[in-house]
């Protein structure tokens, strides 16, 4: 669990001079991450808006075009990301207790899930590129020639592409955490980086929770 407010109350860790205490520093860091996540929601909101407009204006096209996607791969990736959220949550709670082995193991599991997600994405993308199921003028797929289908693919590639970029960035941060955790840097007195990376990672899961039904399961 990411429940953490209680466990830092007694610490006397060194903190930056503009903070009253290490607890205040931790709370400020976490709040900063929440504010960043607000900007992330608004960033994705533009893309969800584009999706909504297409869906309202061209419902038949959206219904036909989503069949170009493989919902089984989408469902598999949903399960993979949810699993990675679990291991991330376990890593955060282990870091609050300073259980080094457990932190490192769960971070590696999270990293592997993220890698697995990207591998599935790779197969999806390469299949589409191979079949010319692509946005705009690049679209050239004879089995579905309905008007405006390339617009669906623009939305699909931009949304999943930017989401995938978030996964890749997350993987980099997790590697950095693994290195710091191996040096025994995290414990009850200091686990801020693990906590706020956890927030970021769960947010990436959150976006996918909506992307999956919206893109793969249109009906």
């Amino acid at each position: 669990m990411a429940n953490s407010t209680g466990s830092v109350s007694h610490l006397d860790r060194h903190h930056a001079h503009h903070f009253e205490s290490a607890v205040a520093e931790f709370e400020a860091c976490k709040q900063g991450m929440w504010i960043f996540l607000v900007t992330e929601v608004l960033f994705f909101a533009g893309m969800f808006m584009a999706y909504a407009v297409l869906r309202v204006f061209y419902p038949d096209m959206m219904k036909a075009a989503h069949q170009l996607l493989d919902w089984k791969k989408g469902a598999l990736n949903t399960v993979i990301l949810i699993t990675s959220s679990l291991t991330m949550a376990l890593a955060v709670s282990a870091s609050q207790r300073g259980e080094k082995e457990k932190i490192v193991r769960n971070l590696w599991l999270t990293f592997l899930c993220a890698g697995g997600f990207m591998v599935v994405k790779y197969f999806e993308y390469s299949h589409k590129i191979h079949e010319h199921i692509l946005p705009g003028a690049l679209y050239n797929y004879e089995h579905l020639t309905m008007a405006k289908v390339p617009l669906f693919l623009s939305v699909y590639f931009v949304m999943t592409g930017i989401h995938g970029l978030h996964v890749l960035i997350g993987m980099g941060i997790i590697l950095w955490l693994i290195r710091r955790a191996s040096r025994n840097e995290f414990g009850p007195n200091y686990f801020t980086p693990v906590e706020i990376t956890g927030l970021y990672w769960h947010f990436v899961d959150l976006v996918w929770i909506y992307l999956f039904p919206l893109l793969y399961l249109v009906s």
Partner: protein
Amino acid sequence: MAWKIFGGLIFLTFVTVGVAQVDLGALNFVVAMLVASVKASLVCMFFMGLKYDHKENTVIFSTAFIFMAIFMILTFGDLITRGDVYVKDLAHIVPEGAVQASGKSKYEKPWESNAELVSAGKALYASNCVTCHGADGQGNGPAAAGLNPKPRNFTAGEGWKNGRKPSQIFGTLTKGLNAMPVFGTLPPDDRWALVHYVRTLGPHASETDSADDLKKAGLGEGGGGGGEKSIPVGAAIELMAEPK
């Protein structure tokens, strides 16, 4: 606890996939979004710890969704209330020929039927309308099954949403209606042709346009345009998006 939440999330993923296999009409979307939101709440409350955290962070994160809602409401408000664009304002974007073609009727009073319009309408109907309205105009085309409300049955004289007068059907074609797309990109004479053909499919249409009806539809003496030439925003965007 983390494991229980994980189990719940996996279970709900299977629910989403399962429900998607059953056709519930418009309800499918509602269920999918509800389930996704329950999953999102579980992630926020337990994995991200908002349940145990200061209320401040919940308030901060909620503002994102409030602003997202404002964004969506304003955008759709704009999209569904757009009027027409003056053709003269498009001159710098769209080649003049393209707009001219969709600006003016060659008939003096295109809202009055003639044989030429009806036969042109028959051909246009076959290429633009049969998918939804069906070959005989009974509203039972191949694509009709997925639509709600159903496409208009032209063989029935009653129940036409915008009315059955020529100017009213012309308006429906120009602006679209529910799932029916905007046909404002068709030149006006093509739209008039469809109007008069569609009126032949049902019982004899005695309704004709009074001077008031024409005025209300922005039509008038002098060729079906009336005043400054204009086309719907949707049609203008289509013209701009066409490859040069």
